[in-house]
């Protein structure tokens, strides 16, 4: 356990003196902040504080500790909490063997944000725990969870929230692996958990005693100490689960089923919750409810985050990500017995979740703007850099507004990363604008004409909308690469996006093979919904392309009109100067002026046609391409599954042959292989179903977004038209008296 910490102020001598009530009180008054930290340090090192009073009754213990603690906690709940966490996270980070500044910073952020977001949910859990257990046992649980929660019973739920989080956090360092404690917790037989939970507080004291001594002696954890603690935790967990499940009208079966599923795999709870958070819940999922997952979710999230932060792009973090997003097959199989029971319920839950998500989506308060394209460098090495400014109140970011400089290839690089990570799972990753060699070369050569300005503005707008789409996607926003892109000062150069590089060539090759394999795959679609959607998407794609061409031609014609109007204006002015009737001459030059203004109006309108209408359609075309991409991913998953099935079939045939040939030695191997492939088939089938579900959800989301976007953009466009027409009225109305004045 937290034996020592390099970064925290040396608590050891202090805490050794802490035996007396007085000393604690003094410390409490000294300074709130220090205290917070101390508290946490003492939390991690719980036993140190209690070392002196091993035989004291629990009540006394609670009193002793809660007295000084409540004061600083309640008085400085808002502020020092971050320090509290810092202290804690430092410790955890240290114990995890990763003493990195970044990691701990990240922790603070995450904790801050999540604690705020889930405060009320934690509330529920605490109350649930309270309802199920006696006062003492609750106190015991809390005590065990972390030494600091003694104040929980007396304090408000809000103050308990971070405390619970801490509990979640506290746990992992106990063992090297992040998920291990959870596994242990959940795999504990509930019976023992219950009995342990109702143990008198005396036992708790004992526990403390044990633990304390253990820690002091330097052992990371001891069996007797850990056992009850774990079971207690398990109990708490169970209650938490049970409560919300009841809320979504689940029966007792779900509880049982949970117990079954829980021991099944270590990753299970972790990914259930991650999935919930992002809302890609496959049907096979046995449990789903927002509240139940809070502490574990934090666990996994935080740690996943931490690892990613520490070792960026390392294969390990990748694997971890995958692991957390994929429900292991074993879990699903173990549940399959109960699956029939839960099916309708899970559907209902899914719906509920969908609703929740919708609300969540709307709540995303983040706005990204791309501004000030700036040419950097000269000649063919020149590139454009854009200012990417983010405005957000989301607590996951370090500040409310921040700006970074990004070049175009960075945007592409971000897309590459995202589509690599999330594409295979069936997410619609918003695509950035395409590379445009011609436009870029023109820009590089340094021609400053209207077409290059046009090009830049188009691209800038497209990039902005692209980023905005990324950050409004609930899952992509959570991606560390996205946040890095928005926040980090310097990014490693994205090389693979260069069209003429080796990577670019490789990409082209993969695309080509993909296209070929897509043609060869003959999927007999079992789901009518997908069949219809695909058709719909494809025809929409075609129509949008046509529409785009039409709007482009409208732009061309509008520009032509603008030019022709300009030349007519000039000509009319000349005619006016030639006219010998003064009034008519005046009117003609007025007409020329009106037409001049008209020219500007048409030109502006052409720009509006381009930026508000044509670009919106171009966006849709790109997005529809991405949607089709997800359908392809689904098809690939299906293909993998089919291939595995074919393989399994082959193995079975082989087995039959061997059986017939009576070769028992090889038979064993064949049987193993069959088992292996059976597992694969099941897994691939699950994968396929998961991808299908994700795609389905994503498509629904896409359509909703599309509708929203379309409407918004169209209104902007129509308003621009409206304005230009109003302007036109003004111009002609001003001209009318001039015409009437001709005598």
């Amino acid at each position, binding site marked *: 356990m937290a034996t020592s910490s390099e970064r925290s102020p040396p608590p050891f001598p202090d805490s050794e003196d802490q035996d007396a009530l007085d000393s604690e009180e003094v410390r409490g008054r000294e300074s709130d902040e220090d205290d917070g930290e101390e508290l946490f340090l003492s939390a991690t090192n719980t036993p140190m504080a209690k070392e002196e009073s091993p035989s004291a009754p629990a009540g006394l213990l609670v009193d002793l500790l809660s007295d000084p603690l409540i004061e600083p906690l309640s008085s400085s709940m808002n502020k020092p909490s971050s320090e509290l966490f810092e202290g804690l996270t430092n410790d955890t980070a240290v114990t995890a063997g990763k003493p990195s500044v970044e990691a701990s910073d990240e922790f603070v952020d995450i904790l801050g944000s999540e604690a705020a977001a889930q405060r009320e949910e934690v509330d529920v859990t605490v109350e649930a725990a309270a309802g199920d257990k006696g006062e003492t046992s609750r106190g015991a649980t809390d005590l065990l969870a972390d030494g600091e929660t003694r104040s929980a019973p007396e304090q408000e739920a809000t103050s308990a929230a971070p405390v619970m989080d801490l509990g979640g956090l506290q746990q992992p360092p106990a063992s090297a692996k992040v998920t291990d404690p959870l596994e242990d917790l959940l795999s504990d037989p509930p019976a023992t958990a219950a009995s342990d939970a109702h143990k008198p507080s005396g036992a708790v004291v004992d526990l403390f005693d044990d633990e304390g001594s253990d820690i002091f002696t330097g052992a990371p954890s001891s069996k007797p100490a850990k056992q009850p603690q774990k079971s207690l935790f398990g109990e708490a967990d169970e209650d938490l689960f049970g409560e919300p499940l009841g809320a979504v009208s689940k029966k007792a079966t779900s509880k049982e089923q949970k117990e079954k599923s829980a021991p099944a795999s270590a990753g299970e709870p972790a990914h259930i919750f991650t999935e919930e958070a992002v809302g890609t819940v496959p049907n096979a999922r046995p449990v789903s409810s927002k509240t139940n997952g809070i502490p574990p979710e934090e666990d996994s999230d935080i740690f996943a985050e931490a690892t990613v932060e520490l070792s960026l792009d390392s294969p390990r973090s990748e694997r971890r990500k995958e692991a957390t997003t994929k429900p292991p097959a074993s879990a699903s199989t173990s549940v399959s017995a109960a699956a029939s029971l839960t099916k309708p319920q899970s559907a209902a839950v899914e719906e509920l979740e969908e609703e929740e998500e919708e609300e969540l989506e709307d709540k995303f308060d983040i706005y990204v703007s791309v501004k000030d394209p700036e040419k950097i460098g000269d000649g063919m090495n020149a590139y454009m850099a854009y200012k990417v400014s983010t405005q957000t109140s989301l607590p996951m970011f370090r500040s409310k507004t921040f700006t970074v400089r990004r070049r175009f290839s960075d945007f592409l690089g971000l897309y590459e990363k995202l589509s690599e990570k999330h594409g295979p799972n069936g997410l619609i990753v918003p695509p950035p604008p395409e590379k445009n060699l011609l436009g870029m070369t023109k820009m590089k050569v340094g021609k400053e004409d209207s077409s290059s300005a046009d090009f830049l503005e188009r691209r800038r707008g497209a990039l902005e909308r692209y980023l905005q789409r990324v950050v409004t996607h609930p899952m992509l926003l959570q991606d560390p690469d996205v946040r890095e892109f928005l926040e980090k000062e310097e990014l490693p150069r994205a090389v693979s996006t260069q069209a003429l590089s080796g990577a670019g060539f490789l990409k082209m090759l993969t695309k080509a093979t993909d296209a070929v394999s897509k043609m060869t795959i003959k999927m007999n679609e079992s789901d009518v919904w997908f069949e219809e959607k695909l058709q719909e998407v494809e025809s*929409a794609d075609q129509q949008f392309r046509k529409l785009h061409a039409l709007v482009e031609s*409208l732009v061309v014609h509008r520009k032509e009109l603008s030019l022709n109007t300009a030349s007519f204006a000039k000509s009319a002015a000349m*005619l006016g100067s030639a006219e010998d009737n003064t009034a008519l001459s005046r009117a003609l030059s007025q007409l020329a002026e009106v037409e001049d203004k008209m020219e500007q109006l048409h030109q502006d309108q052409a720009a509006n046609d381009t930026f508000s209408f044509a670009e919106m359609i171009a966006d849709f075309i790109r997005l529809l391409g991405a949607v089709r991409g997800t359908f392809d991913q689904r098809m690939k998953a299906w293909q993998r599954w089919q291939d595995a099935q074919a393989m399994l079939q082959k193995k079975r045939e082989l087995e039959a042959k061997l059986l017939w040939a009576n070769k028992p030695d090889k038979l064993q191997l064949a049987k193993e292989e069959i088992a292996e492939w059976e597992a694969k088939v099941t897994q691939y089938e699950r994968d396929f179903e998961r991808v299908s579900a994700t795609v389905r959800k994503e498509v629904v989301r896409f359509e909703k977004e*599309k509708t929203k976007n379309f409407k918004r953009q169209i209104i902007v466009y*129509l*308003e621009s038209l409206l304005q230009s027409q109003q302007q*036109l*009225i003004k111009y002609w109305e001003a001209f009318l008296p001039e015409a009437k004045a001709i005598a």
Partner: protein
Amino acid sequence: MTSIDESDKEKLRSVSVDLNNDTALLIDIPDALCERDKVKFTVHTKTTLTSFQKPDFSVPRQHEDFIWLHDALVETEDYAGLIIPPAPPKPDFESPRDKMHKLGEGESTMTKEEYTKMKQELEAEYLAVFKKTVQVHEVFLQRLSSHPVLSKDRNFQIFLEYDQDLSVRRKNAKEMFGGFFKNMVKSADEVLISGIKEVDDFFEQEKTFLLDYYSKIKDSTAKAEKMTRSHKNIADDYIHISATLNSLCAEDSTPNKKNLEKLSDLFERLRKVEGRVASDQELKLTELLRYYMRDIQAAKDLLYRRARALVDYENSNKALDKARLKSKDIPQAEEHQRQCLQKFDKLSESAKKELTSFKGRRVVAFRKNLIEMAELEIKHAKNNVALLQGCVDLLKNN
């Protein structure tokens, strides 16, 4: 086969030359029939003049008959001092026909609805060209009828009254060539006599003005035509956009369907307005400019005739001097000189009157058309605003 009726035509009266509607002789073309390239106009006359047999009569006339009448007037020596109203241009149905043909070729690339709309649009365009044709012919006759001298022309009266086919002979190749040659000579002559010293400041000014004005108005006409065509292109784009939106909407099953539907509807309405803007601009502006371009050409012709007479007079002066020098044929030369002077003086006098009235006519016509165009532009723009506002409100409230 197309025909138009009266009420339709009234609305479309475009090139409004201010015709002092003398009730003594009222001419209109209430009906016209289009058969292939030939357009048969029904020329209707209402008169109180006793020189006509009946007070009210109609005769069928073709475009060639109008040309014949025009040529006959131009060739009449007595009218040399007048601005002969420009002959109506030959009916040109080529462009809408071409477009129709192209549309038929591109039918497969369009949806049925789109095709129908495009066809409708072309039919409307065709009809507009047709109406315009009828109108310029009508205007030609009205100009004649309102002219104090020309209205009494014998050929004109025959043109109006003779109830059989005039069946004017088409010009044969030789005559065509002759006409071409005459034009050449005339232009060369124009260059030759342009160096002549003008005796009257009024005509000197008028000449420079008309030359300058002609080149300017020619340019403006071309530019205005281009501008109008661009407007039409935009209206056409709207049709396609609307149709595509419509087919998008047909396949959409999401809530976006409603938005698409509204937008498609809006574009359909917008294109109608845009089409009107284009055709009104054509009618009020381009046609006006085009007509006056031709009218100025006619005025220039008048100036040419006068200059020719001036040259003739000076030549006769020279001839007289020569004759006096030689003391030979003096009375003939004197007579010739006197005649030339008389002709020139008469020509100058009537030309002055004609040019002055032309100026007044031009200003009035410009005024009328510009006012009408501005009013129409405002009207259409207001229409557009109402449509757009309505659509935006609908979208916002949904």
